């Protein structure tokens, strides 16, 4: 199992070292810190140094490292590190940074003590941890803290380990956000090589008591489970995965999504759809190299949705690193060359449905003699948000909430389609 967890900053200094076993010492990480982290030499996220394996991930300016000398479950090690980031974010108000770690090191140690025991991950639910590990500042006087704490353990180990009992809200509300990330890989000839939607249903619950929720989508399988025919309005999900609160057994047998939600925000499910995707934008790029020092660019972007409006649309057109001068004319928005990334960035704050905008430009490059490698022509990427559009065609059919006290719930559903990896090769 995991022997130690280190938090290390970008310079390679150890901020926190917590040993769970004594076979990997503080100093054992030295070789790893110097050769991998400080040298930024990431040829693999798991590496062996002096017979110990080191897993590492990075979150803002901190590396989280787990070390072991055994044949541990590698995906568990990574999942644990990611869960750790979530825990810290929950405690530090959303941001997890070196400064926050330095300022709260006693708290960090306390959390590390609770989330893992002898290298075995234990409960990583922020909501529950907060019931008995206080943040500094809001600490109760010692006696009361202990009383509050004594209520916690039953819930930590209970079957509904993600929700504490006795939650009360005056107004019971649920927010459902359907967030779809649209991925596209288009060849330079304009054929779609790969396109899919990876979606998340993010739920924000402010519900009293222990509510049991049931949830329905227009997925073919789910509708068949309810005895309905998946008609023309239905979509086909390739795969779904659920938050740990969802009863998987029940989903497997009758395709019903039932669960007792955690309090606050969480990702209820993730899904993937790759058939019949409505790609929000079509990009038609022409990038011509005129000799060794000039480029001619012509990019057309067409919105393929109607009646809604896209926001913050950005088209990033990579240019050769030796670009010297760029002149552009854009039908809408602004285009600007950003030398740090060697990209021509074309920003449009609004992009109404069924419209097409074009950008044309000329690029002059400085001639470089030593440069023998041809320009690798990286792909054009796009960023966008289109509210009230689900690129996969998914919609939420119902969300039912049952609770003993039978209160009324206000439910909100939003949809948004965003860019995932939206790439057009040129």
């Amino acid at each position: 199992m995991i022997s130690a967890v280190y938090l290390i900053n970008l310079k390679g200094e150890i901020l926190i070292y917590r040993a769970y076993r004594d076979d990997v010492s503080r100093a054992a990480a030295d070789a790893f810190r110097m050769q991998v982290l400080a040298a930024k030499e990431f040829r693999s996220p798991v590496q062996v140094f002096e017979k110990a394996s080191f897993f590492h991930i990075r979150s803002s300016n901190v590396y989280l490292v787990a070390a072991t000398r055994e044949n541990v479950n590698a995906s568990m090690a990574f999942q644990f590190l990611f869960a750790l980031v979530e825990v810290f974010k929950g405690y530090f108000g959303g941001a997890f940074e070196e400064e926050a770690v330095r300022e709260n090191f006693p708290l960090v140690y306390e959390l590390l003590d609770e989330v893992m025991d002898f290298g075995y991950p234990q409960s990583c639910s922020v909501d529950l941890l907060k019931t008995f590990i206080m943040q500094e500042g809001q600490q109760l006087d010692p006696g009361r803290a202990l009383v509050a704490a004594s209520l916690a353990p039953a819930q930590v180990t209970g079957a509904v380990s993600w929700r504490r009992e006795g939650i009360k809200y005056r107004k019971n509300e649920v927010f459902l956000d359907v967030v779809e990330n649209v991925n596209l890989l288009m060849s330079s000839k304009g054929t779609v090589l790969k396109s899919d939607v990876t979606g998340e249903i993010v739920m924000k619950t402010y519900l009293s008591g222990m509510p049991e929720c049931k949830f329905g989508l227009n997925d073919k399988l789910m509708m068949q489970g309810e005895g309905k025919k998946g008609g023309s309005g239905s979509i086909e999900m390739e795969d779904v995965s659920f938050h740990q609160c969802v009863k998987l057994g029940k989903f497997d047998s009758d395709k019903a999504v039932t669960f007792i939600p955690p309090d606050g925000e969480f990702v209820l499910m993730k899904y993937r759809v790759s058939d019949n995707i409505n790609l929000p934008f079509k990009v038609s790029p022409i990038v011509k190299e005129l000799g060794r020092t000039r480029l001619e660019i012509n990019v057309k972007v067409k919105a393929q949705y109607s009646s809604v409006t896209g926001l913050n649309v950005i088209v990033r057109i990579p240019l050769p690193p030796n670009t010297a001068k760029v002149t552009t004319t854009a039908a809408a928005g602004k285009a600007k060359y950003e030398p740090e990334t060697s990209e021509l960035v074309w920003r449009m704050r609004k992009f109404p449905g069924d419209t097409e905008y074009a950008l044309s430009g000329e690029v002059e490059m400085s001639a470089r003699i030593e440069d023998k490698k041809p320009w690798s022509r990286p792909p054009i990427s796009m960023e966008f948000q289109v509210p009230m559009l689900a690129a996969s065609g998914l919609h939420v059919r119902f969300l039912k909430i049952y609770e003993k006290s039978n209160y009324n719930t206000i439910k909100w559903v939003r949809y948004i389609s965003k860019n995932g990896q939206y790439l057009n090769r040129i």
Partner: protein
Amino acid sequence: MSNYFKDQGKRGENAELQEELASTDKNKKRDAVKKVIRDMTLGKDVAGLFTAVVNCMMTPNLEVRKLVYLYLINYAKTQPDLAIMAVNGFVKDCGDPNPIIRALAVRTMGCIRVQQISEYLCEPLRRALKDSDPYVRKTAAICVAKLYEISPDLVTDQGFIDTLNDMLGDGNPMVVSNAVAALAEISVRGTPKALVLKNSTVTKLLNVLNECSEWGQVFILDVLSSYTPSDKTEAVNILERVKPRLQHANSAVVLSTTKVIVKLLDIVTDSEVVRTYVKALGPPLVTLMSNEAEIQYVALRNIILICQKRPSVLSNEVKVFFCKYNDPIYVKMEKLDVLVMLANENNIEQVLMEFMEYATEIDCEFVCKAVRCIGRCAIKLQGAAERCVNVLVTLIQTKVNYVVQEAIIVIRDIFRKYPNKYESVIGTLCENLDTLDNSEAKASMVWIIGEYAERIDNAGELLDGFLESFSEETTAVQLQLLTATVKLFLKRPQIAQEMVKRVLALVTHESDNPDVRDRGYMYWRLLSTNPEAAKAIVLADKPTIEDDTNLIEAALLEDLIGNLSNLASVYHKRPTAFIDRKKANDSMDDYEEAEEPDSAQATAKHPQGSREQESAKAPVVDMLMLDDPVAPATQAVRETKLDDLLSLDAPAPTQSARSQGADLLDMLGGPSPAPASSGQLPTLLAADKGNGMEMHGAIKQVNGQLGYELEFKNVSSTVLNGINFQMNKNLVGLALKAPLQTPDVPPGGSHRVTVALASDPSKIEVKPHAGNAGGNVVQLAVKSNLGVFYLTDSIELAAMTTPGFSLAPNVYMSTWQNLPAENQTVKDLSGFPMNNPNAIEQALQVSMGRRGRGRF
């Protein structure tokens, strides 16, 4: 709070802290404890504050108490006697009404690895295992595993294993999953009977699975994967129960479920069931590819295994593995392998277009691998070979240096697989001869020229071009040039007669590489005695090759499938190959061969490989360079085989050659006292710490004369000279009789020498050394042009004593009694048969017999 990190380095800080820790002001005390923990985090030594910190243990503030516990866990080991002070507090806490405090006490006590404390732990632990609160029970379950690590006997004697097994029926899922984890660990660590999976246990675990936390599910699934059901019905039943887990958001749950399913499918025979489950595995694996890059990496390494085991799992999902421009390099590299595995006649067009796209990217290693993958596709899919070759030709025309070279290497393999089919591309290849600088590419090109010498009009000229720089080429290229010239001669004797003579003369007279020289002699003899035989041998048909780049040998694959999601499946190595336990070492050698293909990448980075080759050469030369080598036919046949194993031309240093080298060194070094240990001296200074100087050494007795046997290896690129060696004062007063004299050691060379030692009373010094190091430590200093290094070694009792020496009992008695009283110390030895002189004598003899074990 941030100022805790700033005001460091003050004088007498520890003394100040000591005062603050003893303060009655709660806040002051709390801040002081925090400062101590901060210093500990920064790596400062705060062990001296042990007593003061432990005194803060009974504070009512939970936060402070946790920090004190943290301190205890870190330092108890260095101060076991003081740690006992804390025991009372723990025992008291174990009876606290608050379950959090009880659990905290049990958890912390288990982490303090001090034998004395463990004994006190047993009672509270027993109570905690039966605690009414599940939070305490789940903590206690893990604590049993902790105790087992310190003292396995205690756990078995106290019946804790049975208690844990009872806990598998606990009503609380987290208690069950932690008990499973603890039992699994205990059974791996030496009590295999701890966790015996019976039908009924498995049913219990499957029932709990639904309610467990995500981590608990992983513990249980990992244990289930090692269970073999009694019949097919049971297997199908388990399959049904675990399948819903594939929909879990946690990738570890998904992969562990996959492991259980893939293993169970071996037992199920109903092809319909197998098909259903194989189909069900695909989508969840694809979903893993939308996770964070690190998780994708683990998933990809696993997918390579799963696809080899069940090729149909992802057969229609090739697009998922197309590389994104900003994927991290480690994800891209693995995706390439998966793409080749999934390539088939239907999707090859798309896959090839992808590879071509990748070949224009920037990362050189990635580009080369992409090119290589095109070749692998050609070898794998006969129908697509021509398209692959066309793509390669297009890439060669880009003239990007490393793309061209890689393409040439790949085309060589294609020629091997499909002889006489694509020679039309040779013309294109020949246009790029002057850009070649990679030796593998050169060797490949030369091989192609030799192989198709009859169709390349100017083959002679081309080879001639390479021959100009013959002496500067690597061995692989030299061997290929030699063979190619001979081939050319056999095919077109009229144009190559002069050339072959020249080459043979060159290699036999001027080459100092034994492999090249030997091959030269063999060809020479073969050609001069029987040209027809030479033709038959050198131009024989070659065995066909397959794409086995990724094929993992069947037995290893089975083992790795059982380890899906584990590190073993990421490294593609058996756990024994990377886990450093005493037990593991014994079976290491058996596995070495199987690991070779995978470790190739890793070893390539180690300069050590070439060094070993270097040192192994010397004895090989002497053995092979006999004055009158008879050239029997068998030798020649062996030689052609070598020739055929094209890519294996560079001889890997074999195990036997290496050990021969060591033996020869031993013979030069004179008779050694303990032959078993003489080959390898313990390492005193590793090369990476010694700026390229590696040093081994041990104190030994040779012919009754005490000496320090030292070996210096030079791994640096400069000549190692001016070595000077000194010993500090030590317990037995050992010192050098004469200064060390060593010659210069060239790069890659080594020097072994024994310096005589004598005991000098003025050099005796008895001092308690810091930490847990014993008094038998001797400090050493080595100076050379690479720097000054300070090291420590221990003096072995066995090396110091005179063999076969005996003392009359009365003389011994009087000597003993004449010792001054201040030289005596008393220590209680437990577990020793004190009242039985014979047993003591026997024990001493045994420990003396085992050289190197007896230390004082």
